[in-house]
């Protein structure tokens, strides 16, 4: 690997130091009693339109996204652009469905999806299923954020084996754990602002400078092999790459706001109007993500992967090294420092929110439901803070001792698992028609079938569904959530007829779901 890049490293360290200070100082921002769970874990629901924009943006457009999407474009070509339609169609869902959820959660003081399901359906086991799915799907996601940090640290020239190589990651982890513990959601919210400014500067500079260096977009796309330039046109009797692309976008979109960290970002908003405005403003990030995806083609055109100085990086990190190598190749060291800091800090923001979201879930829907039913506010906040530490420690151990490949595969499975909570959470925002036990069976069937299909396809995203001689390759998550819904719909009248007991009461009323 190349030598240590001292200028870039210094700038990286200075910027990291700044956000560490900011993370701790955030405890005093819009000050509230951090011994209350909704203050620590939701920032007191005090964030207006602009802060929500930064927070949710930092939450869903993560460092890993900025590394992995261009890496996919570099490796696989056009299919990587599914991230664009995916992040186009999430916003109508935010506008319609999640605004309703914001209102009902605000009204009843719900902090998690588990709280909502418990209140709506009165079934603690269904709430437990939603909770456990949320925690399990989030864990590998946190681990992947640490991979993002690992890649940029490696690209700064710090390499080797043993403790020395892992030390920077450990330091980043301790910083993250400490400010999350002391400041709660206020820390990632304030850091997200800095991180996004850095990311926007980096992306804008790169999208202008690199194409000029490479002789224009025409030349760049001419260097891309034709097989990568477009989706393959499907042959006879199959919908081929088209249905794969569309279902990947659709399934990812349906899953996104079901992730605990996305919901935490939404629920911390101060009003339903802030959510609606954000549905129109957040596509700003989508635009940037689309431009970043093009970086994968810049890498091909610049031939960075063939240069000897980056060979070791590509060997260690695979195509995830594409973006760091491109930045190293195209920019002076001081700017590389800023860009890498943007990616590194960009990993801390979602990692902090994810660990807070997982901690909220454990505290509210496992501890309070099954262990101590009457905690004081202080006890509740205390438990959540400790769980956030345990969750992050788990992610760190995972990254240090388990090959990255498994984190990626688990995250893929996580998408299939989390979408199984769509019927109780997203449809639950509109209707209570479903029997809660039928929803639970649907969840179990969907989760089992999804896992089995993913294993059968050797942990790739698309499953080749064959119906009457036609093949419909599609995202496993979409097929299995349809199965989940079908099971829940068929069993609902059956279970209703079998049980003479009245369904448990719904805490919510129709008026709770809008302003």
């Amino acid at each position, binding site marked *: 690997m190349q030598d240590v890049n001292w200028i870039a490293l210094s700038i990286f360290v200075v910027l990291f130091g700044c956000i560490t200070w900011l993370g701790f100082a955030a405890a005093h921002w819009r000050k509230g009693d951090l011994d209350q769970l909704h203050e620590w874990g939701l920032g007191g629901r005090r964030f207006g339109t602009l802060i929500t924009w930064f927070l949710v943006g930092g939450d869903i457009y993560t460092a890993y996204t900025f590394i992995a999407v261009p890496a996919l474009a570099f490796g696989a070509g056009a299919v990587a652009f599914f991230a664009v339609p995916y992040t186009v169609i999430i916003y109508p869902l935010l506008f319609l469905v999640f605004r309703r959820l914001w209102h009902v959660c605000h009204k009843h003081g719900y902090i998690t999806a588990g709280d909502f399901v418990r209140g709506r359906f009165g079934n603690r086991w269904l709430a437990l299923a939603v909770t456990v799915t949320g925690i399990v799907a989030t864990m590998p996601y946190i681990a992947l954020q640490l991979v993002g940090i690992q890649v940029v640290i490696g690209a700064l020239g710090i390499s080797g084996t043993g403790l020395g190589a892992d030390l920077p990651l450990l330091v980043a982890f301790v910083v993250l754990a400490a400010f999350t513990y002391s400041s709660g959601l206020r820390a990632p919210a304030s850091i997200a602002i800095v991180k996004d400014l850095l990311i926007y500067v980096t992306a804008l500079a790169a999208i202008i400078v690199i194409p000029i260096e490479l002789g224009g977009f025409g030349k760049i796309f001419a260097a891309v092999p034709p097989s990568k330039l477009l989706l393959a046109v499907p042959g006879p009797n199959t919908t081929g790459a088209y249905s794969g692309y569309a279902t990947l976008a659709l399934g990812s979109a349906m899953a996104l706001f079901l992730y605990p960290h996305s919901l935490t970002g939404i629920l911390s908003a101060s009003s339903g109007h802030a959510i609606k405005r954000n549905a129109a*403003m957040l596509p700003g990030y989508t635009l940037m993500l689309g431009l970043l995806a093009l970086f994968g083609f810049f890498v091909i055109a610049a031939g960075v992967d063939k240069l000897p100085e980056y060979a070791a990086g590509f060997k260690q990190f695979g195509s995830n090294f594409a973006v760091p190598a491109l930045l190293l190749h195209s920019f002076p060291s001081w700017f590389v420092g800023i860009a890498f800091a943007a990616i590194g800090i960009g990993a801390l923001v979602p990692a902090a929110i994810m660990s807070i979201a997982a901690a909220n879930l454990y505290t509210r829907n496992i501890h309070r439901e099954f262990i101590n039913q009457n905690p004081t506010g202080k006890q509740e906040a205390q438990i959540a803070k400790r769980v956030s530490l345990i969750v992050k420690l788990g992610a760190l151990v995972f990254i240090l001792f388990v090959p990255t490949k498994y984190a990626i595969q688990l995250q893929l499975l996580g998408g299939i698992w989390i979408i199984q909570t769509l019927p109780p959470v997203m449809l639950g925002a509109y209707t209570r028609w479903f029997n809660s036990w039928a929803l639970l069976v649907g969840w179990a069937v969907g989760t089992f079938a999804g896992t089995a299909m993913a294993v059968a396809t050797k942990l790739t995203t698309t499953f080749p569904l064959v119906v009457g001689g036609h093949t419909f390759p599609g995202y496993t998550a979409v097929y299995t959530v349809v199965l989940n819904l079908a099971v829940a719909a068929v069993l609902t009248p059956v279970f209703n007829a079998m049980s003479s007991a009245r369904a448990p009461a719904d805490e919510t009323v129709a008026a709770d779901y*809008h302003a």
Partner: protein
Amino acid sequence: MIGAQKKRGGWSWWYLLFVIQFAVALWPPFYNKVEPTLIGIPFFYWFQLLWVIVSAVFTAIVYFATTD
């Protein structure tokens, strides 16, 4: 604003803009082509980026047109 009151939390015809947004984004045959290029960028890429902007405008229109 009696009509708006009645529509509260219910369906609005403005939501059809969301349907258009979905339909176009999820129909790859529509944009899976190289020509026409824009400053050297194939249609597949620039159209989808343009669609991001169009979708944001649609959402803003729905925001201002619906009241609740």
